[in-house]
């Protein structure tokens, strides 16, 4: 499989080159972008919210367990949950989940259009199909996913609060003190940078898998799986590179 990597990468770049060109009709592209924003944003809100609350809750409880009996002050729980959510868990987890939900859906939708000759029909009409199918989805993802990540970070912090303060494991004052301690706005910027990069990877990789799918339902299923697997691998790889890049002095 690895020897095919340059071929796929080249074709992926060519698709992007085609996709990021001047739209034939801004109104139609905008309409499609809004539809995608709704699908990605509203359609994913519940799952992102649920995951975020549990991530925050589990992180809070785990660290209470870890720090119990240590010399580290307990208000650090709020600080750890906040930074974990903002820097790492919310951007990465949200995008990994969205790769499974939104990414595979994009691959199936575009792949289905390819197999049912919808894309050919659009080509014959004179449409730049790569642009019409990829650009609105990418723009929608770049607008909506950072918002989802921000919501996720807030909910994770609230989840941590609910799991630690409400059962009485930690006082309200300690948790809030932790949240306000060592706050660095740069971390929020880092969260948004990660969100944009991950959203771009997830969307374009999924669109690529759908756009070039071969005929047959087996291939469509395979393409959807590959979209999720490759998006996840690339998101984790990008996460590592971004951390190296953004945290180096």
């Amino acid at each position, binding site marked *: 499989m690895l020897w095919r990597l340059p071929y796929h990468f080249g074709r992926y770049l060519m698709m992007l080159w085609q996709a990021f060109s001047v739209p034939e009709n801004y109104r139609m592209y905008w309409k499609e972008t809004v539809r995608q924003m709704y699908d990605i944003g509203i359609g994913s809100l519940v799952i992102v919210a649920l995951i975020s609350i549990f991530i925050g809750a589990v992180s809070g409880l785990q660290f209470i367990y870890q720090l119990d009996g240590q010399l580290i002050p307990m208000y650090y729980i709020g600080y750890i949950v906040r930074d974990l959510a903002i820097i790492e868990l919310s951007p990465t987890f949200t995008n990994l989940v969205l790769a499974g939900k939104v990414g595979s859906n994009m691959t199936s939708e575009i792949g289905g259009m390819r197999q049912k000759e919808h894309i050919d029909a659009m080509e014959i*009409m004179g449409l730049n199909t790569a642009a019409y199918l990829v650009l609105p989805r990418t723009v929608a993802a770049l607008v909506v996913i950072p918002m989802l990540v921000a919501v996720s970070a807030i909910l994770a912090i609230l989840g941590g609060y609910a799991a630690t303060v409400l059962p009485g494991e930690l006082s309200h004052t300690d948790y809030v003190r932790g949240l306000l301690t060592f706050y660095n706005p740069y971390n929020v910027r880092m969260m948004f940078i990660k969100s944009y990069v991950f959203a771009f990877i997830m969307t374009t990789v999924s669109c690529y898998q759908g756009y070039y799918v071969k005929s047959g339902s087996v291939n469509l299923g395979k393409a959807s799986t590959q979209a999720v697997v490759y998006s996840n691998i690339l998101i984790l790889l990008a996460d590592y590179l971004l951390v190296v890049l953004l945290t180096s002095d």
Partner: protein
Amino acid sequence: MVRTEDIHKTFGDTEVLKGISLTFEKGKTNLIIGRSGAGKTVLLKILVGLIAPTSGTVWYDDINFTQLDKKSLREIRMNIGMLFQGSALFDSMTVEENIRFPMDMFKKMTPGEKLKRVNYCLEVVGLEGINDKYPSEISGGMQKRVGIARAIVLDPEYLFCDEPNSGLDPKTSLVIDELLLNITRLNNTTTIINTHDMNSVMGIGENIALLHQGRVAWQGHNNEIIHSDNELLQSFIFASPFLKELKKKAYGV
């Protein structure tokens, strides 16, 4: 008029088309026929630019279609309408939205003008009043007719149809054939139909090309078929013993 000059197409080690030179005339129903695997669909896709030929040239009147850059290709495609085998209607759109799509994308028209044009095209294909239906809510034959309505909405000079009658009963097939013939006459289009439906061949074939193993095996009008001594043509058109018998009784050949 659409013309091909020595078209070759190779996939891997398999040469699917071996030097196809054909002329498809304006204002006529031009049919490409042949057995499955003869290269009909590949030829049709080369004609509309969905597949590039390995060698050879496609001419649209005096324009070298195979040499066009992407921008010019898109411009000429505004003059092309195509009906796909599976109709290729967009599932998420209503019939009206499907037909309106090319106008929405490329034409500066008021919503009223667009609706008028959609209704006219639906009237041409005999499907008035189904504007709000989704493709999944109408029959296969109706889907084909909506596909034709979408293909002619921009009033194209060239109309391509890939197996327009596949999966349809003989009566509906006749309706589709008649429709394609009428549109060809009405708009003076260069209509190219890829089919292996014998009713279409005998009914509307004004310029027929028989492909066999990637080559043109016969070319002519449907009234030349009965008395042609081309064995490939005869064995293809009158494949069943019933038709052979019928031909013998009717024409004595």
